[in-house]
């Protein structure tokens, strides 16, 4: 039985009623403890219903028909853009591009701004903790134009201090500093505004991967003052297949379109084309219409709950999980101390592989992530192949953290070696 008390301002029991999937039993017939929120969150009924209502009642393609349904869909799609702009405190809806997700958004910047502005010898500066989505597009750009990709390391406490950033900016004079606002593996929350200012002072353009920030903190693009900020819908209780590329309007205006096709053009002739104005310039093809409507419903939901409440509750859960993990014999937390983190805790257990940890926890009804979490360079740098990761969200409870901790403390017993021998063909054994 899961009780849902929280010393923070959230009525978690009431919130959980809004998420149908949180009520299911796990495959092992225990209550589901969903701790894989950094990979993807779950959806409240309001999101599911908003999308379903569009398909049932007013769906059509956007920006094309004159008929009533197309007008209704177009209106809803553009309303969603306005909601996203307000969620990020963007100064104009022209700065809000709908993309397929964070990955697609970063690739768009790489292909459009990157190809236009970077060349042989230029440097792109990243953190070693970046997700592959914020590494591979820059490696690809480097292959195309001959620029270099450099990384800032974490220290022995898994932290990156201002001096490390300042020193890397001085040493490399990067054209672009692209960094995750929070690490999806270490859980560290980085000072986005301060680092953006430092990078601008050093002459770099700044891209912030907010995939792990948008779900948890109040975003303010005008205050952060970066040049590009990207995030995904499915990590903020919205649908898959949609994300946001926010860019400074003057920058987006100066960039060539990336994908070409319908919807992004002003005119097309047998000789060529002229591109549409923002934001359609970067939205070739039929956009994620229903996904945008779902994303709007998700943002409305999070805004109602309150981003500050969400963050406070996650920190409460994350801190409890961090403290509990550090007390378990044989467990090593892969990340800094709790005051630097939100709701993410990665760890390794001495002598047990992350896949087996995850499999065992699944048997206890606890869903965690196992592997490299799309951060292979980070795992390589800290000398582990795979970790397990528990990531909480505002609909998780203190009691769920305790179920998780109990399961982790049982893992080592389950996989402790007991001097077993193979029974078949062992006579052919080792020389």
């Amino acid at each position, binding site marked *: 039985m899961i009780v849902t008390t929280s010393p923070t301002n959230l009525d978690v029991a009431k919130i959980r009623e809004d998420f149908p999937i949180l009520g299911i039993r796990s495959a*092992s017939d225990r209550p589901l403890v969903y701790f894989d929120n950094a990979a993807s969150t779950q959806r409240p009924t309001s999101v599911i219903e908003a999308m379903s209502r569009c398909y049932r009642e007013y769906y059509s393609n956007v920006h094309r028909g004159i008929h009533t349904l197309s007008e209704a869909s177009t209106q809803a799609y553009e309303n969603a853009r306005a909601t996203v702009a307000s969620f990020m405190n963007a100064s104009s809806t022209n700065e809000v591009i709908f993309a397929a997700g964070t990955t697609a958004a970063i690739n768009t910047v790489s292909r459009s701004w990157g190809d236009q502005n970077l060349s042989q010898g230029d440097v792109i500066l990243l953190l070693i903790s970046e997700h592959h989505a914020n590494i591979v597009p820059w490696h690809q750009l480097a292959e195309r134009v001959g620029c270099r990709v450099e990384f800032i390391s974490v220290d022995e406490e898994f932290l990156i201090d201002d001096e490390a950033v300042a020193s890397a900016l001085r040493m490399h004079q990067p054209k672009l500093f692209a960094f995750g606002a929070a690490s999806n593996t270490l859980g560290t929350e980085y000072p986005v505004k301060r680092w953006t200012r430092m990078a601008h002072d050093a002459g770099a353009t700044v891209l912030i991967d907010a995939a792990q920030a948008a779900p948890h903190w109040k975003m303010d693009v005008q205050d952060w003052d970066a040049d590009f900020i990207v995030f995904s819908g499915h990590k903020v209780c919205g649908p898959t297949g949609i994300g946001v590329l926010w860019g400074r309007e003057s920058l987006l205006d100066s960039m060539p379109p990336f994908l070409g096709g319908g919807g992004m053009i002003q005119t097309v002739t047998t000789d060529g084309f002229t591109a549409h104005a923002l934001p359609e310039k970067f939205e070739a093809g039929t956009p994620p219409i229903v996904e945008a409507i779902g994303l709007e419903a998700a943002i409305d939901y999070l805004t109602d709950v309150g981003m500050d409440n969400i963050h406070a509750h996650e920190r409460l859960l994350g801190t409890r999980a961090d403290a509990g993990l550090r007390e378990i014999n044989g467990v090593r937390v892969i990340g800094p101390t709790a005051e630097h983190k939100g709701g993410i805790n990665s760890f390794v257990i001495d002598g047990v592989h992350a896949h087996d940890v995850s499999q065992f926890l699944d048997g206890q009804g606890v869903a965690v992530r*196992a592997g490299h979490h799309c951060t292979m360079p980070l*795992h390589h740098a800290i000398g582990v*192949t*795979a970790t397990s990761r528990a990531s909480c969200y505002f609909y998780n409870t203190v009691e769920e953290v305790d179920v998780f901790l109990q399961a982790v403390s049982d893992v080592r017993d389950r996989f402790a070696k*007991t001097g077993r*021998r193979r029974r078949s*063909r062992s006579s*052919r*054994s080792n020389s």
Partner: protein
Amino acid sequence: MPNEQDIYEEHVLDHYEDPYHRGTLDTASHMHEGNNPLCGDRIVITLKLDDSGKVAEAWFEGEGCVISQASASMLIERMEGKTIEEVKAFTAEEMLELFGPKLTPNRQKCCLLSWKILQSALHSPIGEDGDSSAPSGPSLGEEQ
């Protein structure tokens, strides 16, 4: 859906704790290294193929989960003494059958890692650049 108890059968844990031919073969004629992009685990397989076209000796080296390590041990034990044609003809389905417990698709990738590397090792003589002719094997696509 298989549960945790079903997967870690006794004979699986036996192979995990007491693997067959874990190590590298100094006198190997063939070798291949590969990884599972899902978790980053790496396995190296070394083979000694004899003049009659048989796998005279096979060894594996690597770190990984119970499934990947136990399945590698079972595979190496089963394939030793077989002809190259017999090893090539040993399918993914047969590997899963050899392993025993039913696995979910993601855990099947753990189980098939050594099988895939063994297939490539047959085409990777040491001292030559044999990789280009290696079969790509099943996709172990990266997680998102």
